[in-house]
């Protein structure tokens, strides 16, 4: 199991709120307990929470992807992504219950 500790960019909450979805009511979910981090399941250790949000009840999809991409100027890149989706019920920081969908990018 790998615990990914995050020490990079802090972005104002406004960015996330600016992407408000149709059903999203503005209440952001809480993080996974233990600070700014998340867990990385697989490929052998599956007893690891794949969600990037805490206090959650719903569907989770996780994929570690590899592919190729091309820039608009024709430059070629390798692409590696850790993509996760969460859709369901979650609790906000004040304990209130909400429904919504989120992408971990």
């Amino acid at each position, binding site marked *: 199991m790998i615990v990914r500790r995050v020490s990079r960019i*802090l972005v104002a909450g406004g960015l996330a709120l600016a992407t408000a979805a149709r059903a999203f009511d503005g209440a952001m979910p809480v993080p996974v307990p233990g600070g700014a981090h998340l867990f990385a399941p697989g490929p052998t250790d599956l007893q690891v929470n794949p969600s990037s949000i805490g206090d959650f009840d719903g569907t989770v999809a996780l994929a570690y992807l590899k592919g190729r991409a091309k820039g608009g100027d024709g430059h070629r890149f390798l692409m590696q992504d850790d993509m996760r989706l969460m859709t369901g019920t979650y609790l906000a920081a004040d304990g209130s219950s909400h429904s919504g969908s989120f992408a971990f990018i």
Partner: protein
Amino acid sequence: MDLFEPGSGSRFHDFTPGVAPSGLVWTVPIPDAAIVVSQGGKRLDVDVRDLPVIDATPAEVPATVSFQMTWRGRGRARQLGRGTAVPPTDAAAFLGRFFRARARGTFSGAAGSFTFQSNPKRRARSLFAELGTEQTGALLAGAVRCGGCARSGPGDPGSQYGW
């Protein structure tokens, strides 16, 4: 969503929602309608267009990303996690029912004058993927019940799939 220079491995672009002051990592809301779960939870399709993020490399600039992906579960779901038997900060502090899966997708993005598009003919594919349902934290009270799921303990992770 990271783009690397072939050969050197240097990261050229890093499209990310960032880390919220709350500690929520790289997670951003998307429309509920962007996600479709079907086949009894064994398939998930997502179609997200022009999601506002930032490109953090080489300098932070406003950006957008789009992605279309499909997860397809394989085999039988298995129950995972240890729920409240472990501390809330433990990696196993969840209860879930997950399929091992395969995922594929196409991605595109823009940051200023820079744009990229993943290969639409050879879609990006998963090295590892899983798909399922879970409960965590305060919502663990109504623990997942799945009598038909394969069961295994922490000592034999992945045994069902021969990993």
